[in-house]
């Protein structure tokens, strides 16, 4: 199992060795980056079957938790550990000559993103998040969009950096508050202590601070001002990577913390409200956008708002809906960005495009229909899941969320329909033509193929998502897995000071379901 740490170590090594290697051989340096990505993918695929059965965890450097740093791997983190190298490989700057430093930053991005997904330690999450942020500031200022002056990207990068740094400081403050309350940073032990120590106003304020910090990357409502500037200034490949993958990583971390650390219903309500504001503001501005990239950037804010609403549903069903929407967006939005790469300029210029490049337009229509939720496509099923589960909630805030979501979908339909109408307008003397590079076109087709395959394979996709949601929504499983090597958490508490033991029962009022899961675990270990 320990070899999974290579997912972080190898790209990190490559990031710093590539510029040195490039001094002797440019080709070797460039190939080494790709090689590391391929190794990462094989590593993940090797343990895929094993993690399907049960989650695993290992301590790094031989120090046992809660003092040592642990990696925790369940189906969720493994799926993203696979998606990170795959997406980086897809959105590698294939289409233009780039400097070795750019590749180096891409590797840094891979390393920190993998670390963010696998880490089971709050402070490690902070460090990897910062690394991810630094790598993306660098990439934003380097990968300038074609035809754009680089100064635009520098300004976008600076504004992103200022906002991101404030977010990071807020997150650090949140972590400091949690440490003050509990005296530990290990997620499993925090989860053990959370029902007692964090289920109060202090814990809630820590959650708000961390939410603001991670929300910068997750395009959460008040801290997403960087989105339109950055996505309009950088190359569409980087926009696709950021909108598709990086925003989801931050969301997944928020969800992980929400499940393990913050059991308050207020935390969920806060996420619903921010998600509602995000979805409505994003779609309203996208409706007014005058060029394709900006429209997609604002629409991505709206979609992320939808993800937040889904994750704010209580229980495993919220996780299921959230994963479904997030993964759907992860496939569709990058494909749309790839198509938008060849359609720069204002929307009116695209009039009559269907005559000159019918296949590109057809693909756009397909992706737009899935984004909207037209029945046979996956977008329909994820939205149906969300709508049905919002409707059965008794809490009125979810009914507001439902209304906002449907309104936003109408807006989305309005602007996407407008673009499609423009595409199919009859123009006698059209000069419109697509300028897609071959790589962009192939990427878009591949992502659309994934979308269509998931239509055919809908039952198995659903099974996978359900087991993923069940596994990642299980607090006790996390605790038991991390502390498996040193006995049960109860034993661990015995070894802690006697006062702590008196203060901290294992779980305050475990629900019937949690009890059942616990019994399952005990039975499972007895069988072994």
């Amino acid at each position: 199992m320990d070899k999974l740490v290579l997912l972080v170590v190898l790209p990190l090594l490559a990031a710093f060795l590539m510029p040195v290697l490039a001094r002797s051989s440019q080709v070797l340096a460039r190939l080494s980056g790709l090689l590391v990505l391929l190794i990462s993918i094989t590593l993940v695929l090797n343990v895929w079957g094993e993690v399907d059965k049960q989650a695993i965890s290992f301590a790094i450097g031989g120090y046992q938790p809660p003092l040592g740093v642990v990696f925790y791997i369940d189906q969720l983190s493994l799926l993203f550990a696979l998606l990170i190298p795959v997406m980086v490989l897809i959105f590698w700057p294939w289409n233009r000559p780039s400097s070795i430093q750019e590749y180096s930053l891409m590797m840094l991005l891979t390393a920190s993103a993998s670390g963010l997904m696998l880490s089971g330690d709050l402070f490690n999450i902070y460090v990897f998040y910062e690394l991810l942020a630094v790598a993306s500031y660098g990439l934003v200022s380097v990968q300038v969009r074609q035809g754009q002056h680089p100064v635009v990207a520098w300004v976008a990068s600076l504004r992103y950096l200022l906002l991101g740094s404030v977010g990071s400081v807020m997150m650090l403050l949140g972590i400091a508050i949690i440490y003050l309350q509990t005296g530990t940073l290990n997620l499993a032990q925090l989860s053990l202590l959370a029902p007692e120590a964090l289920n109060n106003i202090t814990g809630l304020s820590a959650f708000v601070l961390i939410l603001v910090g991670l929300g910068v990357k997750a395009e959460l409502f008040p801290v997403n001002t960087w989105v339109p500037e950055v996505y309009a200034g950088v190359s569409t490949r980087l926009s696709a990577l950021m909108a598709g993958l990086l925003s989801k990583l931050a969301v997944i971390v928020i969800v992980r913390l929400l499940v393990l650390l913050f059991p308050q219903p207020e935390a969920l309500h806060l996420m619903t409200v921010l998600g509602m504001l995000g979805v409505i503001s994003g779609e309203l501005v996208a409706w007014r956008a005058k060029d394709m990239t900006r429209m997609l950037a604002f629409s991505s804010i709206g979609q992320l708002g939808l993800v937040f609403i889904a994750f704010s549903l209580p229980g495993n069903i919220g996780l299921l809906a959230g994963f479904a929407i997030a993964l759907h967006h992860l496939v569709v939005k990058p494909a749309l960005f790839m198509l938008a790469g060849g359609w720069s300029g204002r929307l009116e210029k695209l009039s009559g495009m269907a005559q000159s490049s019918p296949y590109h337009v057809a693909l756009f229509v397909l992706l737009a229909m899935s984004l909207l939720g037209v029945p046979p496509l996956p977008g329909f099923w994820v939205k149906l899941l969300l709508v049905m589960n919002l409707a059965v909630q008794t809490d009125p805030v979810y009914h507001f969320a439902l209304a906002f979501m449907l309104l936003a979908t109408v807006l989305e339909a309005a602007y996407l329909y407008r673009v499609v109408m423009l595409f199919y307008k009859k123009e006698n003397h059209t000069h419109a033509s697509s300028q897609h590079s071959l790589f962009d076109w192939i990427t878009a087709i591949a992502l659309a193929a994934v979308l269509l395959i998931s239509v055919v394979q809908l039952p198995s996709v659903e099974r996978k998502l359900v087991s993923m949601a069940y596994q990642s929504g299980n607090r006790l499983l996390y605790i038991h897995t991390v502390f498996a090597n040193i006995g049960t958490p109860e034993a661990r508490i015995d070894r802690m000071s006697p006062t702590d033991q008196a203060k901290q029962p294992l779980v305050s009022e475990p629900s019937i379901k949690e009890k059942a899961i616990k019994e399952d675990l005990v039975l499972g270990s007895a069988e072994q």
Partner: protein
Amino acid sequence: MNMTGVEGIVLLGAIGLIMIGLAGLFMSNNVFRMVLALVILESGANLFLILAGFHGLGIAPIFLSNHAISDAGHMMNDPIPQALVLTAIVIGVGVQALALALILKIKAHYNTLDMSEIRQQMEYDLAKNNDVTLPASAQSPDSLVRSKVICQAEQTQPDHIQAKADVQQIGGSVNG
């Protein structure tokens, strides 16, 4: 947390630094000052984190023998927050250096450090390169600031201002 007098003062100092930093970031319009405010904000957060593991009478862990740790654990300052702060300081310095490098580049091109001006010029450039008209909200505050921009930059970059005016004209005609 039982606080002695010193800790109370330090806590107040940490919160004060955070407040000063946030106020500086939101109220200042000069990018360099914004970076400085960020530095203050980060030191406030770091001080707060240090305080999380600080005991009024504690000593640094390396000065304790093994025996002393088991005897009087409560006398030790918690080393974990100190390690965290060390990491946070290093990350902060790196990010601030990157910010300054970006500011230098931007200053060389736009010849201003004013955030709202930088942002407007960027919006113009973006709109020009994308061949779109600016949205009304981005256009409106321009009439207030433009006189300032021209006063400051007339001698240095007349052609750039001219380009800006051109874009505006295009925008106006399309809107009209």
